[in-house]
């Protein structure tokens, strides 16, 4: 730069400016945070006020005291309690099953040698790109044939397949699991399953936790397949929300109360484990 004799000083200054966030950075972040949280905050306001209050101009900006009656009314329209219980069962089973199956397969792909492993791994990777939604018609015909329509297993079993999970566990285990440990166990005469139970699982635990949280979140929020496989007689939270939002309930505050109950549990869990989930997404991104 012209007229700038101290290049090193300039460079030091430049490298520091890379690292520190200025007031504009904070302004942008605060704005984005507000935009991210505002719809959720509005849900709380609308769910806790009467319909007359939220249609006023200007709209209220603080929560009111009508939450319980609104929830009662929402629960009389759709079975929110059953929906919450079903969602916990469905998402919990999917998370547990996915973590188990993906850890098994991820371990095999990371550390075991077997014929066809490359081809099978390519199949796994290819399915990460194939949209599963497009298979829902035969899937529906299948569960209709099995008489599973409106039963929870219709949602649980097809969702247990997670190519992403296999890939994540494979990447994690090929780095975190030292070959020497397995060698030592083999020397001691341990079977592959014994190795899996006593060595692989303890080491894989952090990645299993991340995969479990992400899978639970995705299963909880899954929409397309559950509204096809289930009805409002035996709903998950999303199926219940679908019937609430279908337009047959006209009370805004009641709809918002239902939405709030269906969303709050997962948001609380998310706020508590947010740091780990953020770390999991970022780690998955680098390796993916």
């Amino acid at each position, binding site marked *: 730069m012209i007229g700038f004799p101290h290049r090193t000083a300039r460079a030091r200054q430049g490298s520091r400016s890379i690292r520190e966030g200025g007031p504009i950075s904070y302004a942008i972040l605060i704005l984005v*945070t507000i935009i991210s949280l505002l719809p959720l905050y509005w849900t709380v306001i609308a769910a806790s006020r009467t319909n007359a209050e939220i249609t006023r101009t200007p709209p209220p900006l603080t929560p009111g005291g009508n939450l319980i009656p609104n929830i009662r009314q929402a629960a009389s329209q759709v079975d929110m309690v059953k929906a919450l219980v079903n969602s916990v069962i469905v998402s919990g089973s999917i998370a547990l099953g996915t973590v188990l199956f993906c850890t098994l397969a991820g371990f*095999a792909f990371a550390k075991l040698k077997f014929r066809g492993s490359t081809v099978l791994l390519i199949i796994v990777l290819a399915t990460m790109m194939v949209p599963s939604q497009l298979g829902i018609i035969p899937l529906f015909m299948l569960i209709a044939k099995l008489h599973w329509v409106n039963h929870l297993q219709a949602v649980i079993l097809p969702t247990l397949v997670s190519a992403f999970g296999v890939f994540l566990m494979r990447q994690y285990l090929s780095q975190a699991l030292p070959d020497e440990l397995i060698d030592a166990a083999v020397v001691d005469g341990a079977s592959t399953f014994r190795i899996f139970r006593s060595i692989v699982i303890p080491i894989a635990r952090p990645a299993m936790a991340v995969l479990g949280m992400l899978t639970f979140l995705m299963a909880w929020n899954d929409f397309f397949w559950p509204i096809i496989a289930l009805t409002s007689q035996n709903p998950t939270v999303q199926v219940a929300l679908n019937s609430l939002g279908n337009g047959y309930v006209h009370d805004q505050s009641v709809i918002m109360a239902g939405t709030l109950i269906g969303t709050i549990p997962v948001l609380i869990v998310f706020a508590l484990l947010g740091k780990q989930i*953020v770390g999991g997404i970022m780690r998955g991104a680098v390796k993916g």
Partner: protein
Amino acid sequence: MQTSIPNPNEPSTPAEAMSRRAWRPRLSARFETRFSPYAFVAPFFLLFFAFGLFPLVYTAWVSLHSVTLQNTEDMTWVGLDNYSRLLHDPLFWNALGNTFTIGVLSTVPQLLMALGLAHVLNYRLRGRTFFRVAMLMPYATSLAAATIVFAELYGRDYGLINWGLGIFGVHHISWETGNWTSQIAISTIVTWRWTGYNALIYLAAMQAVPEDLYEAAAIDGASRWQQFLKVTIPSLRPTILFTVVVSTIGATQLFGEPLLFGGVSGHRGGSDHQYQTLGVLLYDQGWFNFQLGRAAATAWTMFLIIVVAVAVNAFLAARGWNWWHPRERRAARA
């Protein structure tokens, strides 16, 4: 992929020779090492073939038949009728156009904003965990909940957005009934839910960029903006391609947002089909008109569209790249 389990039939160390189980039957040990890997991958692949691959392939077969929702076991061969019917259906072309415009309106601003946001998040900040978690909250909110809330926010008479615009003198907009307004509204729901998530993915990639690159650029007198353009963006190339592909696939399948945004008329994509996407059309054909065969033809067509869209996007991204970095292109040619 590395293998690490040595063949237990060849005792190579004294420890192994001395170990308790060294004398166990050779045959069963060999059998175990050889076949247990298949047992490890079997649960995944069984489920995958039954509920992943089979439905996808079978969709093509179903699409050549007339099948109704009421009696899924009764399939009548109709050849390519479902496809010719689809290609002559104005609703299909309408849905294709809507999927494209909503896809562009949601994906492009979303990825650009995510990129900028990731850049800001990459600074040393106070409370950075808070910011990261806060902007991931929309991702944790379900599609159904987000869409219901936004549908209320975009309400014509009492919606918060119209109230906000009213302060600036904009007259009440009927978001849901308009062609563009409804598509813009739906795009903002998608953008709201996914921007933070993509920002985190970009941030992860940015943190892998070596610090020296920035220092070298700073020594050469590059401003922050120049550093962003000339150091950050090139380093993120594979990640950007990845997010473009994933967003393209997601946008082609868009379903829940338009369906719920429309309330009662959601499965038609609005009273005038003004925001009916291909995913919604498929649902309408199958579960409101009970024609699973036609819905399958739509699904298979969507699959082909996704393949083409991903290929085109990947090609455009690569072309755009060369335009961005002519020097690399010249070097590649030489």
